[in-house]
């Protein structure tokens, strides 16, 4: 899984530049999808909540806008190794503007129980 961090990369860019970078990002997604390397991906709205505490009793706003750490989106990759996933991450068009990409292997089994997780279309996706 590629986790795109940084929702402030557009700061200092003109709107035309923002559109250009966002356009590059979409083209990158389309190309990877056509190559069969991406099985899913989405941008996230810059809003949401953070739930915590026993019974989820704490529901807080998150710092999802304009933050270096906030997650802006993700890709789910279908590649053979972490190295390959890292190589793809290095192509991210947001990198020159301060975005970072966290690269994490996906497991399709719960590490604890060894049980297969619920059946879903992404069960074969590994990164």
């Amino acid at each position, binding site marked *: 899984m590629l986790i795109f961090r940084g929702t402030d990369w557009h700061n200092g860019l003109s709107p035309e530049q923002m559109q250009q970078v966002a*356009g590059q990002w979409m083209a990158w997604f389309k190309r990877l999808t056509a190559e069969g390397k991406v099985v899913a991906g989405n941008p996230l709205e810059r809003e949401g909540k953070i739930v915590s505490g026993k019974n989820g009793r704490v529901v807080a706003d998150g710092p999802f806008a304009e933050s270096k750490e906030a997650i802006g989106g993700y890709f789910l990759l279908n590649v053979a190794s972490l190295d390959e996933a890292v190589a793809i991450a290095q192509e991210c068009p947001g990198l020159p503007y301060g975005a970072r990409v966290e690269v994490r292997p996906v497991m399709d089994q719960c590490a604890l129980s060894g049980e297969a997780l619920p059946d879903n279309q992404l069960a074969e996706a590994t990164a």
Partner: protein
Amino acid sequence: MDANNEYLLLFRGKEWWNGLSAEELRTTMEQIKGWFDQLEASGKLKAAQPLAREGAVVSGRNGTIVADGPFAESKEVIGGYLLLQVDSLNEAIAIARSCPTLKFDMQAEVRPIAGECPSMAYARQIISEQQFATA
């Protein structure tokens, strides 16, 4: 604007299973399985996977900086995700609140899936405002 009413849940926290007795572990695993079974039966669960506690963080102009990460001990590490299809953010939040591992100091981030990159939408808005201003 929510795309297809999809929401991403990201679970953060340490390895909550550390330090639990075998009994507590078994009970919690049953609760988790029950939670997943219920979600699946409801048709609201589109995908769910754990993430291995290893990987890399890529940064720098051409992604030339590749650091090991994240660190397993950190509370901030994303341990897994769920992709839900529900009618509202409140419903996604309710599902997050019912996760059996929250009591072990886990945190669930609930985010609506966007129909397009918010920066793209923002740029378009600025451009149309500029055009309006100079018209």
